[in-house]
């Protein structure tokens, strides 16, 4: 099996979970990777202070799409306040693969938009 394009990465890329839009939604954010122009947006519905529903939309490479898909599953049910505690290591651990410096932003874009939606923080996760 390929070390980067593992079967579950390709599976999440080809059949992304929680992709689409939510209307109405409580929180939203949209951002892009300036290196490649890939775009990713998120809609979140909040209930009882928790992420009740979440949908990503946009397009990107296998790494960025799999990262969004995998982390969407972790995010649903999480207290909104906890999202700001997630860092770059968390996002990369979710992927479970070695990420080279050239693909780092691909792996972090989904966390960037999730943090943006929940905290308004537009910086890249560190």
């Amino acid at each position: 099996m390929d070390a980067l394009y593992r079967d579950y990465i390709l599976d999440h890329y080809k059949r992304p979970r929680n992709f689409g839009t939510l209307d109405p939604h409580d929180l939203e954010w949209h951002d892009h990777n300036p290196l490649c122009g890939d775009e990713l947006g998120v809609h979140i519905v909040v209930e009882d202070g928790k992420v009740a529903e979440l949908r990503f939309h946009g397009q990107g490479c296998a790494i960025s799409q799999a990262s969004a898909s995998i982390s969407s599953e972790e995010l649903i049910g999480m207290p909104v306040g906890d999202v700001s505690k997630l860092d770059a290591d968390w996002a990369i651990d979710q992927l479970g693969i070695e990420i080279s410096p050239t693909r780092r932003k691909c792996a972090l874009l989904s966390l960037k938009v999730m943090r943006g939606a929940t905290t308004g923080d537009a910086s890249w996760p560190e």
Partner: protein
Amino acid sequence: MSATAVDVRADFPVLDREGLVYLDSAATSQKPHQVIEAMDDYYRNSNAPIHRSVYPLAAEATELFEGARERVARFVGWDARTTIFTRNATEAINLVAYAWGRENVGQGDEVLITRMEHHSNIVPWQLLCQERGARLRYVSVDRDGELAMDELDEALGEGRVKLVGVAHISNVLGTLNPVEDVVRRARAVGALTLVDGSQAAPQLSLDLRAIDADFYVWTGHKALGPTGIGVLHGRAELLEQMRPFLGGGHMISRVDDQTSTWNELPWKFEAGTSEIAEAVGLGAAVDYLSAIGMDSVRAHERELTAYALERMPEIDGLTVFGPPDPERRGGVISFAMPGIHPHDIGELCGREGVCVRAGHHCAQPLMRDMGVPATARASFHVYNSRYDIDRLVDALAKAREVFEL
């Protein structure tokens, strides 16, 4: 010409790397040892301040620098006096946008560019138009990657266009634009033209007198030369009228407490210590290209492009962007494959030693028109051969296997 490619490959030290297939020359070309050695030799044997010191070493350095300018000017059929060294093509365009644009573009005026421009020929005009209350307009690109010349005429006909900016060869689509025609149409309504020759100077035999643009810019590092040096060729009367771009040493004639007067062309636009070694390197690069002959370089690029356009569609579902006719394009091919994002194509080709670019290629407005966030791009130069394209096609087939397509 394929034989020439085999011959010249040995001139490029980096291509000795095991298994390397370099197909990213539209981003930056590789450098022949003649260029590397000319720069090394300058630093080892001739390094000195140019223009103002009178001792023999300085005279020698000055001669090397100005000699390089003369050869670079001759390479494209222009005069040395109106050939200005800049840091790169981007700086050359910014120079024109600042020094000419701020004096000549005002409220209600228009700058007309095309949707296939590199960001370097978009953003300086955005900044100018925002500052001066002018409007930035675009000429569309049709489905075959050609400019919509009727839109050009329509915009010019409205009489507000002050300058037309156009790429000679698109860095994404490879389109070889009819720049002589664009210049003629613009001049007929009193508009100036700036041609971005960053992709053209490395692969075409240029006669700037025949193109007759008011400004023509290109960059050294895509033309087998070093980074850190670009070129602006301009019409003398415009350059003479224009205010300076950067102020500082060397660009002045006399400095008083409150005002200064300017040096003659081309030095009026070359503030500060010049990129001497880089100019020497670029001089060696144009000598190298001239020795091969630019007609041969162009023929080689055309042959490789035709071969790639024939072989790449063997990959299931692969789409090639830009003009289908190799006569209508330079050695640049952007492509997409369904089910694999360009970044992943770039990653998987890279593993096979095949260097292709993936991304928006600094042309985001064009990407939006094409309906893609990014493309993969293969581009060629003298050191490439049909073998390199075969390796690319093999790498693309393998990428599809990894993605289980």
